[in-house]
């Protein structure tokens, strides 16, 4: 039986009185790559904030690996967040720390790791994102693509069950973007990590995603839900066609 790791039911996302999304429902299965797509201002990043527990739902439910993000107390959510990894749009690395120190941050939660093994583990994480040797570099010394990859290494530090990505390829050149696609694919296949990706990169969607939801700002919700192939062939709604038939790789 396929296990659902994230269940969203009738979620309403809002900033104060300003409702961004309403009646949003979907499920993410274990080990799948799930893409949340849509135009600018449709609420993709807001939805991500709800999924990772930075915002709490007042209407609807979000259950992530059995924990109800609406009703769980802060301590439970904090403990639960250790099962997530999040790659933020600009990497989210701490500027005053080297890459090694950034990656060691979550690892310090695990007690008694011998220093030599910690160093090896950091090196292994960096090599997974093709940044072996960069442990003593500061984020400011890296390019945007390298910062994103380093952010991914930190997000993967504790081998999370779910990895969330906010626009992983935004602002990257095609070659670096493809490196990110390969990385996502390798980690997904190798570790069977569930991945939720907020993006509007069609190539990423068609190459990697198993399921996609398309959000629309006027509808304040999902206007299409299915596999990338299904959505690419969807002709009943012009907005869906406009989005998915811009370019089919």
């Amino acid at each position, binding site marked *: 039986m396929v296990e659902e790791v994230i269940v969203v039911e009738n979620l309403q996302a809002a900033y104060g009185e300003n409702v961004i999304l309403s009646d949003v429902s979907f499920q993410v299965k274990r080990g799948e790559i799930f893409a949340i797509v849509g135009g600018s201002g449709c609420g993709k990043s807001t939805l991500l904030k709800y999924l990772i527990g930075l915002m709490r739902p007042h209407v609807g439910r979000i259950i992530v690996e059995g924990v109800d993000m609406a009703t769980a107390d802060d301590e439970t959510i904090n403990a639960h967040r250790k099962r997530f990894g999040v790659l933020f749009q600009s990497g989210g690395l701490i500027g005053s720390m080297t890459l090694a120190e950034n990656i060691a941050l979550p690892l310090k939660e695990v007690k008694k790791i*011998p220093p030599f093994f910690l160093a090896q583990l950091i090196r*292994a994480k960096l*090599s*997974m994102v093709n940044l*072996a040797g960069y442990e003593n570099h500061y984020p400011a010394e890296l390019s945007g693509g390298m910062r994103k990859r380093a952010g991914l290494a930190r997000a993967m530090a504790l081998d999370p069950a779910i990895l969330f990505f906010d626009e992983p390829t935004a602002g990257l050149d095609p070659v670096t973007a493809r490196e990110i696609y390969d990385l996502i694919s390798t980690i997904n*296949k190798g570790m069977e990590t569930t991945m939720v990706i907020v993006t509007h990169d069609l190539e990423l969607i068609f190459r990697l995603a198993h399921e996609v939801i398309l959000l629309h700002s006027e509808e304040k919700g999902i206007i299409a839900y299915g596999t990338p192939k299904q959505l690419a062939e969807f002709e009943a709604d012009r907005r869906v066609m406009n989005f998915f038939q811009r370019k089919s790789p």
Partner: protein
Amino acid sequence: MTKGYRMEQKADRILMAGELLLPDVPSFLEEIEGILKQKNSTSLEINLTDLKKVDSAGALALTHIEEESRKRSLVVAWKGMNDDVRKVLNLIDRQALNLPPLHEIEKRVSFFEATGDLCVKIAHDFYTILTFVGELLVSIPYCLLHPRSLRWGDILVNMRRTGADALPIVGLLSLLIGLIMAFMSSLQLRQLGANIYVASLVGIAIVKELGPMMTAIIVAGRSGSSFAAEIGTMIVNEEVDALTTMGFHPIRFLAIPKIIATSIVVPLLTLYAMMFGILGGLIVGIIGLDITLTTYLKESFRGVELWDVITSLLKAFTFAILIAGIGCHRGFQVVGGAEAVGEATTSAVVTSIFLIIAADAAYAVLLHYLG
């Protein structure tokens, strides 16, 4: 806490079962180290048939066994590795693990090296400040000759932020300083029956020194730091580059309005601080020393001349230019990210306060010789 894995040694075989995940890795490493230390033979078989799951730390721990075995001239044979474990193990790039870092962490430098670095840094700082002053000396006359090039709206906004918004804190601190000075001096002067001199002591100190100095220090803390942070953040966000590419001169666009606004409001704030400082002394004089209002005020202004007020305002004007200039200069020096903005902000405040005190000392000597 129970371990997720089980390990059993049978002669030259190690049988592993369960799940080898990060939290168990430290104890696994200890166990394996113990086993390897005791081994005398030249081969080792590790059977992973019942090992269901590893994470990347677990996979790395398995590669560590190979590494340690090689050091002890032991040949390791892996048996029964399932696909799930193999997939994770394949994510570990064994060659990359032993490569040296591309650059080493900076080591501690010797005292002489650190002193040399500091001297170079100070010299460079002096050079950049001189360059900035030069740019200001060119930009200010340009703006005066082309008043339409000035952003008057921005000047007014900065006057409000630096001046009007600082009124409560400047007033309160000046009042308290006047109060403390009057109270502390009265304790001594009362013994000599010279209570009446409290008024002139407070008046002279506040008007000649503390008024301009305290105001300048408050403005440096509030506004100098804010100028550095604002311009620094604009540099980080490439806003200054955007201004330059649109044909705007960043110093004229960003620094000059701040410098003009600060040089207008700081002398006014100084007058306001003087008023509140004297008021603080007055409160102690009337309540604690039984001096009447008119006597106190008469005594206060007996030791203070108009020239003292003018020179204090001139000092305040100089301090204002130093605060705004240093704040903007430190902001323009920002390279990097959030940390650099923080450093620029701290440096703006520290440098401003140092220069305020240095300028005050220079004024003291100059005014002494001017009589």
